[in-house]
């Protein structure tokens, strides 16, 4: 199977900027992953390294147990187009070139998707708008039939109608032909129910690598009078505290099963759930 293993990877740019700092992760096959983090956290660097677009300063990456560097057989399993890739050709030529790289590329399916997403295949890809180009890349990815798809901001500039269609097509494609999909995005709310696993990067380090379900079961909020909230927070790990006037809400980093219900009742606090986006924001806050 195509398990991706990243072992102790560090990337330093210009001898001083550490984009990735000794990261190790295992990406299980046939699951949809969300790769989350703030601008400059190292998401794109990681994707570029996975596909050997750039080389790590140190560390190793294997797919299905095989080294990726200079290994065309392994690289042919991964589909990835960089965000700013220029493709100065007409569509039919792009499709043909895809077929050279990805022998299972489905040209008919790609044409059908282009039609459904209102992309005029008589144009050249370089004259597409940002949104159209995002869609075009996503179409190439879905039609590639590669075993691993890396999607970097797949809905950048795409209108909500087409975003919705694309998410649905992605799920349909994945249901019919299970594959590993890694989606790097800032639109966390939109992908929160689509991804099964989440990797959160902060300042070049992996701070979370877990399923959405277990991640969200390890966190809850309490709301109430500020001094009471502070009392509940004593000896509890918490990520973010926010308040209006005398009321405060805090995100507690503790399993829901360990809630102290009697203390909360005594202090007149209310429990709440945390959404993936809120949690990600709290965990990647500066400082």
């Amino acid at each position, binding site marked *: 199977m195509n398990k991706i293993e990243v072992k102790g990877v560090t990337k330093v740019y210009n001898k001083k900027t550490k984009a990735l700092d000794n990261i190790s992760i295992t990406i299980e096959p046939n699951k949809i992953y969300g790769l989350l983090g703030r601008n400059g956290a190292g998401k794109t660097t990681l994707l570029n390294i996975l596909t050997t677009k750039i080389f790590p300063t140190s560390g190793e990456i294997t797919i299905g147990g095989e080294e990726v560097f200079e290994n065309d057989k392994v690289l042919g399993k991964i589909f990835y187009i960089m965000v700013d890739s220029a493709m100065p050709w007409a569509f039919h030529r792009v499709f043909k070139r895809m077929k050279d790289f990805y022998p299972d590329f489905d040209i008919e399916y790609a044409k059908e998707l282009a039609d459904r997403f209102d992309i005029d295949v008589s144009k050249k890809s370089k004259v597409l708008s940002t949104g159209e180009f995002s869609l075009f890349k996503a179409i190439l990815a879905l039609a590639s039939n590669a075993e691993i798809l890396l999607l970097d901001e797949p809905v950048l500039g795409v209108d909500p109608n087409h975003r919705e269609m694309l*998410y*649905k097509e992605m799920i349909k494609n994945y*249901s019919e032909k299970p594959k590993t999909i890694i989606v790097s995005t800032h639109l966390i709310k939109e992908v929160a*129910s689509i*991804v099964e696993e989440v990797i959160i990067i902060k300042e070049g380090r992996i701070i979370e690598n877990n399923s959405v379900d277990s991640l*969200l079961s390890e966190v809850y909020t309490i709301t109430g009078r500020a001094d009471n909230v502070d009392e509940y927070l004593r000896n509890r790990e918490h990520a973010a505290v926010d308040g209006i006037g005398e009321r405060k809400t805090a995100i507690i980093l503790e399993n829901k099963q360990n809630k102290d219900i009697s203390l909360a009742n005594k202090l007149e606090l209310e429990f*709440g*759930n945390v*959404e993936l986006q809120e949690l990600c924001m709290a965990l990647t806050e500066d400082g």
Partner: protein
Amino acid sequence: MLLKFKDDKAVYIQLAESIEDDILREIFNEGEKIISTTEISVKLKINPATALKGINILVDEGIVYKKRGLGMFVVKGAKEKIMLKRKNGFFDSFIVPVLGEAEKLEISEDEIVKMIKGAKANGRN
């Protein structure tokens, strides 16, 4: 079928409950086929593993069953099973919060009963 998920419960639990609702409302009838997991995931934009987890709750509770190669079907007697289960949870899910809110607003028990009777009479149930 429910189209918007709330954030107070896991998505797969809300999915299972909404299918139960559809069985109670006879949108899915006993002995008939329900919507497939793929259709659920695509329509509701949820991960297929989540959809499967939701369906599996219903399988474990004997509400739907799988016919190999054909899909998921509603068990005969499923509606009654769901009603019984929901009745058992009715007190905790509905009565307790009503009493809690009523206490905050200083609404008496008599007033609550009056409201319920009034709503029934106005056909607002």
